C-alpha cells in the first residue's frame, strides 16, 4: 500500500505505527478520555524527544526536522488510525503552519523552537474557517499606546484549553493580524466545550482587553494557507482512521457467525465491506495526493485540499457508519471502539468545512460560480466514459 511513498517516508510511517500501537492502544486512549487528561504526557514527550514529530515542519535551523507535508501526512494518518488524543494537530500543523506562514520574525522563531522541543503547546484561533462558516469569531485587535490589545470571542478553538500559547487571527485595522497570546494572559478566559469527538478538545475563548504581541504583517493569505494545510491534515487523519475502520469491519465479518456461517459470507455484508474498502483506498490516495501538493508549496494547494476534503468528508463518515452497521448491536455499545471512530471521523468531516463547503470552493476555483453559463445543449468534446466500447 506504500508504493507511492519514498522508502524513508514508509519507514517513518512504520515507526510511528509501531510506537502508537505500543504506547497508545485503545485502553490508553480511553484512559485519557475518561480522566479528562487531554493528552498522555509521557507519550507527548516521547513524540517530541524520541520521534521529533512536533518539529516535523519546523526548519532544521530552528531545531525541527525540516521535512515536508508528505511526512506529516503519514504521521497524521497514523494518529487518525490510533485515535491519539491530544493537541498534536493544533500544535505541529496549525501553529507551526501559522508561524512559518507569518514570515521571519524573532517571536515566531522563538515559538517554533519551543514547539519543536515539545516545551510549548500552541494552537490557532482562526478568524473564520474552522468549520468553514463565517461568524466564528468577533475577536479584533487595536493598537493603543504602542501595544496591541484583543477583544471579542472565538466560538471554538481546537485545543484552546491545553495550549500554552494561542495564536489569534484577528482584524487589525484594514489588515488581518496574527497575535501571540500566552495562556496566562490577564483577560483571557477559556471555556471547555462538549465535543462530539472524545479525542479532540475545543474551548470557547473570550478576550477582554488582552495584551498580545503581533507576529509578522498582514495574515490574510497566511490564514488561507494554514486553513488549507489544516484541511489536508484532516484529510490524512480521515484516511488513516478509515483504514482502521476497514480492518475492523472485515475482521468482524470473518469472525461473527449467524445462521451457522460467518456474516462475511453474505453478499449484503460483503458489499458493505467492499464499499468501505473503496472509500479507504480512495481517501488514502487523495489525502496523499493533497499532501504531495502541500509539500510542493504550490498554487494548487487550495484546490488539492478542497478535492481531498470534498471526497473524504462525506465518504469517510459513511464508511464509519457502515462499520457500525456491519457490527450490528455490538457496534452500538460504548465499550466497542466503533463509536470512537465515528466520532473522530464525523468531527473531522466538519472541521475546516464539510464536503458541500469544499464543493462550493471548487465551483469557484473551476470558474463555475456566477457569470459562467451553460448552453441549452452543452455538448462537450469528450463524451461520457461509457462511450468507450465495453467488453463482455
Amino acid at each position, binding site marked *: *500500500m506504500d*508504493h*507511492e511513498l519514498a522508502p524513508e517516508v514508509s519507514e517513518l510511517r512504520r515507526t510511528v505505527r509501531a510506537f502508537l500501537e505500543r504506547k497508545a492502544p485503545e485502553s490508553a486512549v480511553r484512559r485519557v478520555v475518561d480522566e479528562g487528561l487531554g493528552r498522555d504526557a509521557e507519550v507527548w514527550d516521547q513524540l517530541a524527544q524520541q520521534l521529533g514529530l512536533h518539529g516535523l515542519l519546523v526548519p532544521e535551523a530552528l531545531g525541527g526536522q525540516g521535512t515536508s507535508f508528505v511526512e506529516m501526512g503519514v504521521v497524521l494518518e497514523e494518529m487518525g488510525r490510533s485515535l491519539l488524543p491530544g493537541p498534536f494537530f493544533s500544535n505541529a500543523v496549525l501553529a507551526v503552519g501559522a508561524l512559518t506562514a507569518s514570515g521571519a520574525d524573532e517571536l515566531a522563531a522563538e515559538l517554533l523552537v519551543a514547539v519543536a522541543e515539545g516545551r510549548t503547546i500552541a494552537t490557532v484561533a482562526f478568524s473564520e474557517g474552522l468549520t468553514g462558516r463565517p461568524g466564528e469569531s468577533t475577536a479584533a485587535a487595536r493598537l493603543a499606546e504602542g501595544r496591541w490589545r484583543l477583544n471579542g470571542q472565538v466560538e471554538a478553538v481546537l485545543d484552546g484549553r491545553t495550549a500554552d500559547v494561542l495564536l489569534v487571527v484577528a482584524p487589525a485595522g484594514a489588515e488581518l493580524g496574527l497575535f501571540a497570546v500566552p495562556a496566562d494572559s490577564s483577560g483571557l478566559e477559556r471555556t471547555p466545550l462538549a465535543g462530539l469527538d472524545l479525542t479532540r478538545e475545543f474551548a470557547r475563548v473570550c478576550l477582554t482587553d488582552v495584551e498580545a504581541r503581533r507576529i509578522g504583517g498582514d495574515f490574510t493569505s497566511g490564514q488561507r494557507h494554514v486553513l488549507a494545510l489544516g484541511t489536508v491534515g484532516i484529510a490524512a487523519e480521515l484516511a488513516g482512521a478509515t483504514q482502521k475502520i476497514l480492518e475492523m469491519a*472485515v475482521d468482524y*465479518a*470473518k469472525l461473527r457467525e449467524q445462521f451457522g*456461517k*460467518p456474516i*462475511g*459470507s453474505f*453478499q449484503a*455484508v*460483503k*458489499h458493505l*465491506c*467492499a*464499499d468501505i*474498502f*473503496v472509500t479507504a*483506498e*480512495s481517501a*488514502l*490516495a*487523495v489525502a*496523499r*495526493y493533497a499532501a504531495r501538493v502541500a509539500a510542493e508549496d504550490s498554487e494548487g494547494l487550495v484546490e488539492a485540499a478542497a*478535492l481531498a476534503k*470534498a*471526497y473524504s468528508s462525506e465518504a469517510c463518515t459513511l464508511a464509519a457508519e457502515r462499520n457500525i452497521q456491519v457490527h450490528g448491536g455490538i457496534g452500538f455499545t460504548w465499550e466497542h471502539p466503533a463509536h470512537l471512530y465515528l466520532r473522530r471521523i464525523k468531527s473531522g468531516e466538519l472541521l475546516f468545512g464539510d464536503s458541500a463547503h469544499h*464543493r*462550493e470552493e*471548487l*465551483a469557484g476555483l*473551476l*470558474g*463555475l*460560480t*456566477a*457569470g*459562467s*453559463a*451553460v*448552453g*441549452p*445543449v*452543452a*455538448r*462537450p*468534446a*469528450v*463524451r*461520457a*466514459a*461509457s*462511450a*468507450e*466500447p*465495453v*467488453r*463482455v
Partner: protein
Amino acid sequence: MTATDELRHYLDAHLPAFRGQWGEQPEFEGKLAWQRILQKGRWVAPQWAEEFGGRGLDVVEALACSEVLAEYGAPGTAGIYGVANVGPTIAQWGTEEQRRHLPAILDGSEIWCQGFSEPGTGSDLAGLRTRAVLDGDEFVIDGQKIWTSDGVRASHMQLLVRTDPDAPKHKGISALLIPLDTPGVERNPIRQITGESEFAEVYFTGARVPVSSLLGPLNQGWGVTMTTLGHERSGVVTYASQVQRQVEAVVDSLRFDRTGRELSPLLRDELVRRWVEGRVVGVLGQRSLASIRATGQPGPEQSIIKLEWSQFGQRLAQTQLALGGLGAVAGPDDALMTDYLRARASTIAGGTTEVMKNILAQRVLGLPS
C-alpha cells in the same frame, strides 16, 4: 530521444492529415485506418515484443505512451479486444504458429472478439456449456455465445468451450482460436437499448476447427482466460486518466459556453461532484502507477478503479443529460441521450458491479465465499 518524444513526433507528422480525412471522432472504418497508420510506426502496442510488432517497452513507458495518445486526443484503434486481451494471451500461451496472429492483430488485418458469455452464463462464466468434442484431429463445436463485443465485425474469436463435461466446472474448459468464417458459425447482431448493435450472438452448429486451434493446454482454458482478464489490469491506469480528462473536459465546456442559462446551484453542485469523483479516480490511477513501477503489477486499487469508473460513467451521463435541459430529451443532437442509455451497460459488462464487489470482498479482503 525517449519513446514518448518519438511518439509525439509521429503524431505531429500523421494526426493532422488523418483528421483532415476522417474527422475528430471516426467510426470503425476510420479507426481501422488510424490503426494502420499508427502501426506503421509500431505504436499500437509498444509494450509488445519487437518480433510481434511492438517496441519491447516496459509497462511504465507504455502507459506514458497511452497518456501521450490521450493528450493528443488521438482516435482509438479498431481491434481493441485483440490488442488489449487476446494478443497478450496468445503471446503467453500460443504456439509458434498461433503467434503469427500477433502482427495481424496489431496492423488491423485481423479483428478479434472474445466468445465468453452464454445465454445461461453471464456472471457465472465458468458455467459455460458450449461444447467442443475431439473428432480425429478436429474439434467439433456446438453451442451459443452472446454479448460478444465486436462479434459482428470480428474476423476471429478467442472461444471458451467445455471440453470435459465430467470435470468440475473450472477444470473442463478449453480456449480455442478460431476464424469466424468457419462453416457452422453464424452471427446475429443484438439490437441494444440505444438502437445500435455493438454486440453479437454467435451460434455454433457442428463447426469444425483443427486441433491446432487449442490455446494453452486442454482443459486449462480457465487459467488461460484469467491471463486474458489479467491483461486488462494495467489498463486501469489509462482508464483512470481518461476519466479525469473526461470530467475536466465536461467542466471546461460548461465554463466557456456563454450562450445559455446559468447553472442552478444544485446542478452546479452535481457537476462539481462529478469533477471530484473523476479526479479521485485519476488520483487512484496515479497510485496504481506507483504500484506498477514498484512491482510490475497494479495494487488492489485497480479493482476499485474499474468499479468506480463504471458507476462514474453512468453518473456523468446523467449529469450531462440534466445539464442539457430540454435539448437533452428533444433536440437536434441525440448523442447525449445515446450516451446516457449506453452507460447502463457499464455496470453490467465485464462483470456486474455486484459480482465485482463479491470478487473484491473475497479476493482482496479475504471474506469467505
